[in-house]
């Protein structure tokens, strides 16, 4: 295996690992900020004790997750230069700016105010302290914006021209207003709300059935978490739907690939199941709903959607000979997993909502709530396959239409070096994941939320 393949693998592992924590940071920072706002506006003395404990409880879960996100984020930033230095040379004029702005405008806010928040309970006024966590939430979500500006360029380049074999920025404003950013940003933002919300639901459900002392507060938190998650799920579905419609114009190959539509059709059917044959460039068998794909994209039963084989022909004419088809099978099933999980999360959250709003008294007898942690991997899987669709869907390009992934890898690396780092990073990631989860779980088990000081 060569340095290119290993570098791709290493980047994939790091990105997926990093993005286990990022959505929780995005969503949980806001949730903790909301809890603290509730706390500082609350009335009675007992109530305040309990709410402060609650803020610190979810704050601690947030911090464990945050630390994991931060340290893997540094790896991400270094990777571009370490493994993808030809990409960095080619794209630096465009890609470096949002990255530097992310550090300058977002990371500093996040890292500074999280420190103040952790240690500032007795040093700041309540309002100032609460403002700190809001600033952390703002910084986190702003950093997502910057990195998605950078990623959106790779998916759909705008405001650039090619000069001496390098892509150079001609209009920074166009980069920021790239319509692709909207889809990616809101989809990620709401995915963050959903993931964090579902995490809170899981923790609450588990505490309600296992921890009598803390039950009352977790029932009250669960109500809020259900509403928060529902907001996230609807947001993620809406933004995802609009983004897919937009892909028909901006990146038709990606759209056709995750629906395994090989030939241009009007109206195009939606495949529930497809036995994708990448080699022969067709589906060996499929189960179709006629009109459905066209309807989803065009909001009407009339409208053409370009197929993979037709797009391949077009790209050969534009970019010269080559294979421009991404991993159709992987994308087809990733998309179905993502959407399926979205639906499942909506269902589970809805049921939890019914239970907590209408059958609150019976919740403590619902032993099956103990099984909720088994469902917790779902949003994380959805996030990972979602990024698989986004990133695998632009292959063989690293920057669509401008640079191929093969041309982007650092030329000085040997496969031995990349093997070493790949194994090293992966081992450390696994080791830390185990410790972090262990720490979080045992913290959740032993921490009680009651009015006793």
């Amino acid at each position: 295996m060569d340095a290119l393949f290993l570098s791709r693998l290493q980047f994939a592992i790091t990105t997926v690992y990093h993005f286990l924590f990022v959505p929780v940071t995005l969503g949980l920072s806001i949730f903790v900020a909301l809890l603290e706002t509730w706390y500082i506006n609350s009335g009675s003395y007992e109530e305040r004790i309990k709410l402060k404990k609650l803020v610190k409880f979810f704050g601690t879960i947030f911090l464990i997750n945050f630390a994991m996100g931060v340290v893997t984020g540094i790896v991400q930033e270094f990777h571009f230069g370490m493994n993808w230095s030809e990409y960095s040379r080619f794209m630096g004029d465009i890609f470096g700016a949002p990255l530097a702005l992310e550090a300058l405008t977002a990371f500093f806010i996040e890292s500074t105010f999280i420190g103040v928040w952790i240690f500032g309970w007795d040093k700041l006024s309540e309002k100032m302290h609460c403002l700190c966590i809001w600033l952390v939430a703002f910084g986190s979500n702003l950093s997502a914006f910057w990195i998605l500006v950078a990623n959106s360029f790779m998916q759909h380049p705008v405001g650039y021209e090619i000069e001496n074999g390098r892509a150079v920025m001609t209009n920074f404003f166009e980069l920021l207003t790239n319509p692709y950013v909207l889809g990616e940003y809101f989809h990620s933002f709401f995915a963050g709300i959903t993931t964090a919300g579902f995490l809170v639901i899981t923790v609450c459900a588990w505490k309600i059935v296992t921890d009598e002392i803390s039950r009352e507060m977790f029932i009250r938190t669960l109500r809020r978490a259900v509403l928060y998650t529902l907001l996230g799920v609807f947001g993620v579905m809406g933004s995802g739907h609009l983004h897919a419609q937009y892909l028909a114009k901006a990146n038709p190959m990606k759209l056709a690939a995750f629906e395994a539509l090989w030939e241009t059709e009007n109206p195009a059917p939606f495949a529930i199941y497809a036995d994708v044959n990448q080699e022969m460039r067709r589906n060996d068998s499929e189960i179709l709903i006629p009109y459905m794909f066209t309807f989803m994209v065009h909001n009407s039963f009339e409208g053409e959607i370009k197929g993979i084989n037709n797009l391949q022909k077009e790209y050969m004419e534009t970019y010269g000979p080559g294979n421009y088809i991404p991993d159709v099978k992987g994308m087809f099933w990733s998309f179905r997993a993502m959407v399926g999980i979205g639906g499942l999360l909506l269902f589970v959250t809805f049921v939890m909502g019914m239970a907590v709003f209408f059958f609150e008294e019976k919740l403590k007898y619902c032993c099956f709530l103990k099984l909720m942690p088994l469902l917790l991997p779902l949003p994380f899987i959805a996030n990972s396959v979602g990024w698989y669709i986004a990133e695998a869907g632009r292959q063989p390009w690293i920057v669509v239409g401008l640079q191929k992934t093969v041309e982007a890898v650092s030329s000085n690396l040997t496969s031995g070096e990349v093997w070493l780092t790949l194994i090293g990073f992966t081992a450390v990631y696994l080791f830390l994941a185990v410790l972090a989860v262990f720490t979080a779980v045992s913290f959740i088990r032993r921490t009680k939320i009651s009015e006793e000081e």
Partner: protein
Amino acid sequence: MDLNIIWFILITVLFTGFFILEGFDYGVGMLLFNRPLNERNQLIRSIGPHWDANEVWMITAGGASFAAFPHFYASMFSTFYIALFLMLLALIMRGVAFELRGKFNSSDWKTFWDGAIIFGSFVPALLWGVATANLLRGLPIDSEMHYLGGFFDLLSPYTILAGVFFVLLFAFHGITFLMMKISDERILLDLRRKSSFAGIATWVAYLLFIIASVFETDVMSKTVGVIIFAAALGVLSSGWQFARAGRQKSAFTCTTVTIAMTTVGLFVALFPRLMVSSLTPEWSLTIYNSASTPHTLTIMTVAAVIFVPIVLAYQFWTYKTFKERISPSNSDAH
């Protein structure tokens, strides 16, 4: 003055900020070594609110290098591939350690993570020294800005000396920082004793580094550089005297100024180059052949002019908020 020079100055500023701020928290991290748990808790508490923001100075310096001088970023990070891998492992362990160590009330658990902090502070300090010396001394870089060597070509007596010098300088800087932040008399006494040794060791390492640089690099071809390094050596020795006399603030100011002058001196010696090619001087990366376009540099300049002062303002505020000395009793709380 053109945009390229402005950005060279800004990168220097960012690295200076990074070495000053993260310098003392690397130092504090290394000073955990061979200390009882209760003392380690106090040391960690002193940098608790700050280390993460300090680390962002490095990330910003990296990001700004990417934006302003992409070829420099690309060549530097791919050249130091294995070195950066080691540094990343160290930083990963360190960052997680600060967060997880307090989550169990077990001394074994804490000792394990404190080991990670020691390792995670020592390795980056050492490697930044090695890396900086390599930039200055020159590396086999071809006409396409590609590094032709491997990891072990980065290690030579000179570059390792530079690494040791960085480690000592940051450790001493950490000592002077702690002298301002700690209230526990036992630790203070120990720090003062250590400072007298660390000050001399740092001073000697610095002198050796300068002498070696004369032979290994062209640092001394610029008079300004020579003056800066000589002055830094002078400031460092005052820092040593202040530390011995127990004048903590003056001592910390001196180590801060020493680090600032050293960083500036190194960049002045490099100017207008960013990475020296040992094969042919013309193949060196400079602020012109590795830069972004004027459009990007202009945008980044505007952003830096607006945001760097804001960042400095709120970071300054955090140091004011946590200016009190650490009390030995509640240092474990968070």
